[in-house]
């Protein structure tokens, strides 16, 4: 429909920027930062065409996904693999989140990255391409390549620019998330082979396909049927990879280590976008391709999600390191997202997508905020602070706004997402009110740990002499944080702006769930 390859442009622009940075002398930090920032802003501007040109479309009648900005070039014809890009309502805002956070993160490196600046920017831009690639790739092989490629820059960012225990954290991050995705590769191959065999029976010489949309269409039309046991197996293999990435309790222990050691910019990207790869994958693969298994597993997964919500909150409460506190709060918040996804209805899934965006914004902002203090005092211990609202009033105000957004105050973005998710879970016949009785407890605890953080750091007496000379935000920091506050407020007051375009695609996913299950109930034992 669109002749201009806008998705490719958004996808590869950061990589082009990274290549251009190679020409910059290694020790010219300022130039490297400026070029990187320019590239990031250009990417953001290019990506603005996506929501502007996005026309919510109804699902195609053959069951394939209603994708837009589609690009498809054959790549390995004998495997049925193609360079296939496209977005729908599920991925649209996640791409926007990525392109929006990129310039912010790069802007923050002025204050937080001081060695090997050029290489840092190169890795950051490569990471951006990989992340966008995961969201826009509509070919299983391409998806998998981008998926694994996100690991490399991130591991290096942690391992080179991280804190004192960075090598351990980087290794743990890499091995943990990688071991999860290896099973996914197996499942991708399995899906490909099964699909080919199923269709080759009818059309001899069928080369098979790795196109997600085509496989979904085959599954929905019944041409390609999965044995229930096999479907659950494939579901599990995909799910494990995503659950580790999200991370779902009890697969979360890589996250605090990675966050604590990662540089500020790395933490922002990690919490802001990388975790969303998991929730995106759950919707795109687990729900779309394996509806029956999703329904089968939903209660168990929801139990894990609810445990994660409460567990993450309680553990966050007991932390003394600010970054660790925020990291565990992510575990809690991502539990909400998983709960919403496996509510398996429109409210739950759209709430989960919205909350993915919200979490990216508020937790990203929280990491930036912790970074601001860390750059000034070089400690993240809560006990080292107290009463700094007095010397840093603007900083205190912004922190409060972000913390409240994270705690789910109505009028700010976090509430809308959480409430929609909870309503979805309440309406889901598989889940219902007993789950909510516990999940809503997480809302209380969010206020407890975030306000405790706020109380110890910002309120009380300014009794530590080292804190008395703290400077309020400089202009760059202010711009960075203010840029994050705008969507935090806007999405709280007018979330329909984001929710509207995703409805058609969400409805498509949810209807697919209902139809496929209804059509094959006789196959189940």
């Amino acid at each position, binding site marked *: 429909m669109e002749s201009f390859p806008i998705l490719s442009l958004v996808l590869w622009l950061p990589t082009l920027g990274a290549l251009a940075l190679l020409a910059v002398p290694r020790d010219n930090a300022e130039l490297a930062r400026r070029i990187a920032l320019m590239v990031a802003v250009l990417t953001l501007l290019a990506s603005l065409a996506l929501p502007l040109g996005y026309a919510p479309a109804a699902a195609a009648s053959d069951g394939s996904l209603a994708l837009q900005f589609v690009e498809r070039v054959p790549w390995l014809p004998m495997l049925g693999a193609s360079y296939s890009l496209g977005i729908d309502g599920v991925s649209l805002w996640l791409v926007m989140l990525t392109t929006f956070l990129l310039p912010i993160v790069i802007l923050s490196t002025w204050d937080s990255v001081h060695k090997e600046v050029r290489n840092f920017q190169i890795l950051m831009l490569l990471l951006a391409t990989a992340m966008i690639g995961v969201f826009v790739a509509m070919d299983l092989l391409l998806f998998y390549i981008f998926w694994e490629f996100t690991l490399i820059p991130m591991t290096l960012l942690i391992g080179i620019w991280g804190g004192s225990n960075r090598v351990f954290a980087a290794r*743990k991050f890499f091995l943990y998330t990688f071991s999860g995705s290896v099973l996914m590769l197996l499942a991708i191959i399995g899906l490909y082979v099964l699909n080919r065999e199923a269709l080759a029976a009818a059309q001899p010489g069928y080369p098979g396909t790795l196109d997600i949309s085509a496989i979904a269409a085959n599954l929905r039309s019944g041409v390609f049927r999965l044995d229930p046991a096999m479907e659950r197996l494939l579901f599990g293999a995909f799910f494990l990879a995503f659950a580790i990435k999200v991370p779902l309790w009890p697969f979360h222990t890589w996250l605090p280590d990675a966050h604590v050691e990662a540089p500020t910019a790395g933490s922002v990207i990690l919490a802001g976008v990388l975790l969303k790869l998991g929730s995106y994958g759950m919707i795109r693969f687990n729900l779309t391709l394996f509806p029956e298994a999703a329904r089968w597993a939903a209660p168990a997964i929801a139990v894990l999600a609810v445990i994660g919500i409460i567990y993450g909150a309680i553990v966050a409460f007991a932390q003394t390191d600010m970054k660790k506190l925020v990291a565990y709060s992510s575990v809690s918040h991502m539990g909400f997202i998983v709960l919403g996804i496996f509510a398996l209805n429109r409210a739950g899934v759209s709430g989960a997508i919205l909350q993915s965006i919200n979490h990216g914004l508020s937790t990203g902002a929280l990491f930036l905020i912790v970074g601001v203090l860390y750059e000034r005092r070089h400690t993240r211990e809560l006990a080292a602070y107290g009463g700094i609202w007095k010397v840093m009033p603007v900083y205190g105000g912004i922190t409060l706004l972000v913390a409240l957004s994270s705690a789910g105050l109505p009028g700010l973005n976090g509430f809308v997402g959480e409430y929609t998710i909870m*309503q979805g879970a309440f309406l889901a016949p598989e889940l219902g009110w007993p789950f909510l009785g516990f999940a809503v407890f997480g809302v209380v605890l969010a206020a407890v740990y975030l306000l405790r953080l706020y109380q110890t750091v910002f309120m009380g007496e300014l009794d530590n002499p080292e804190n008395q000379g703290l400077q309020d935000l400089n202009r760059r920091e202010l711009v960075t944080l203010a840029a994050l506050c705008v969507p935090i407020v806007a999405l709280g007051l007018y979330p329909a702006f984001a929710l509207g375009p995703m409805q058609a695609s969400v409805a498509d996913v949810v209807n697919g769930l209902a139809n496929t299950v209804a059509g094959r109930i006789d196959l189940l034992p």
Partner: protein
Amino acid sequence: MEWLIWLIPLLPFVGFLLNVFVIRHERPAGLVASGLVAASFVVAVTAIAMLAGLPEEERRIISVGWEWINAGDLRVPFGIMLDPLSAVMVLLVTGVGALIHFYSIGYMHGDARVVRYFAYLNLFVTMMLFLVMGNNMLILFLGWEGVGLCSFLLIGHWFERKSAAAAAVKAFVVNRIGDAAFILAMLAIYANFGTLNFYEVTVAGEVQPGFLERVPEIIGQSFGPSWQPIALATGISFLLLIGATGKSAQFPLFVWLPDAMAGPTPVSALIHAATMVTGGVYMMTRTEALFAASPATQTWVLWVGALTALIAGTAAIAQWDIKRVLAYSTVSQLGFMVAACGMGAYVAAIFHLLTHGIFKALLFLGSGSVIHGTHDTQDMRKMGGLRTAMPTTYWTYLVGAGALAGIVPLAGFWSKDEILAHALSHNHWPQLIILFLTSLLTAFYMGRQVALVFFGTQRDTHYHAHESGRVMTVPLIVLAVGAVIGGAINLPWGHWLTDWLHPVLHEEAGSFNPVLALIATAGAVGMSYLGWWLYTSNAAKVKVGGKDPAYRYTGDIWDGLEEAWYVDRLYERVIVQPFRGLGDFLARVFDPQGIDGLVLGIGRFFGWAGAQVRELQSGYVRTYALVFTAGVVLVLSFMLIFTR
């Protein structure tokens, strides 16, 4: 016409924005903040006049701004409304609010963060207006949490004080517990009615139903385990009750309110007496149809209200802090209102809410004037004899105290009497006795307070007491006038308020019982005098830091009363400390050693296995050759056996 009601909440919001982003100095901040709230009051009066011009059945203006949430199964519009119930609340909020804004100009003069203070105050009024004007539960909740936030900010205004910071967090968190129940109630309402709107509304040409009109649909439905089904209406309304106990400081969640007195006194007057804490009562009145569907919950509401009234009333008599007396008194009076809701006397509850809003604001502002005039003294043991130094404050305070104690013909008498009369006429005997006892306690502690503060001689002479300035006394006088005549809005002979609220609550005026009124008045006068007499005649025994004269008669029970029956300490032991322990255990032991131990254990296993296998690499070429040869023999044997 419809757009007009948007101005009511938006004017204070403009003040908030101005004070946050533009204004940097004290004077414009105070003037802009007060002026815009006053303007909002004027708009509200205009809008209500228009509302009154409509036929009774049509007195409801709903205006939908935009579609707030549209997530498939969940659709909520962002809309506000003005109906008779909202109208009286709006008048209270903007009217008392404006007076308190003006008062703050004087009270907060010279404060380091006064601009921010006015910003918070404006934001509070905005949020409170959303609370009472929301046309659906979610907007109500937006205001509900918004006022909680402002309460947090204002209690923590002097955040350098550790106690203020802690009180602010405590207030927010305790409220959040109630809010969680509120959220659950909203989820259940939406799941069963498919809407969160109170009344039918048209959004973008599409008619959305209102759940209050559809309550009969769920009567008879139940949920929960089959061996113990719970009526749906009971479940929902009980959750709402929990929500109300948080915001309206009812037992068992009242503990935050006395601590909240760490905030500036005008804040205590506005938020923690006149408006925010009445949010729970307003909410229960608004969703009265749901409560009416569940007699079980009604009984709970009644008992919660009555017990809270008693517990807080007993606690109030033993306080030394001038504001804590009023704080416990507020909790106690809110208990009256909640009990009225439990009896189904919603008009009486709203009536008491309005009069209480006026005279409690008066009392708080009066105490603020005392604190201001005595250079930040709050301990009543350090006061005494202030009636000569602060005559205006004294007289207005006396009016407020009389109204609270229920002296004829002040406002409090009429509203309290309506509640008691309703209890009598509907045979709620145990609650009637409890509430009556509480009203006697009320009269007693107000007598005690007036005696301690204004009579006798000044016990601590380190300060020179002086009367406050005009900007503070004028609001006192205005409110005192209100406290005198406020009862007129619903006299037994006129019951104007009952008629006005009739389209919403459909209640008939209750009967006036002269005997009860007489007994109550006699009790109030008697107990007030007793309290006054006890503490004027024993004034010499009151020492700074010493025990109360009544301690002689009651012994350690008095200490228990001063600590409000140790509820706070109980929570500390039973909830807070175990929670900290659990958090520490999970964070320091279970997570790193349990879950992460498992993860790292897997890693360590492979490391260990590698170390074992490494031993095989002896470095001897001949050993490698031996293994190699063994492999050759094996492969050849395999080929010999399995190939033909």
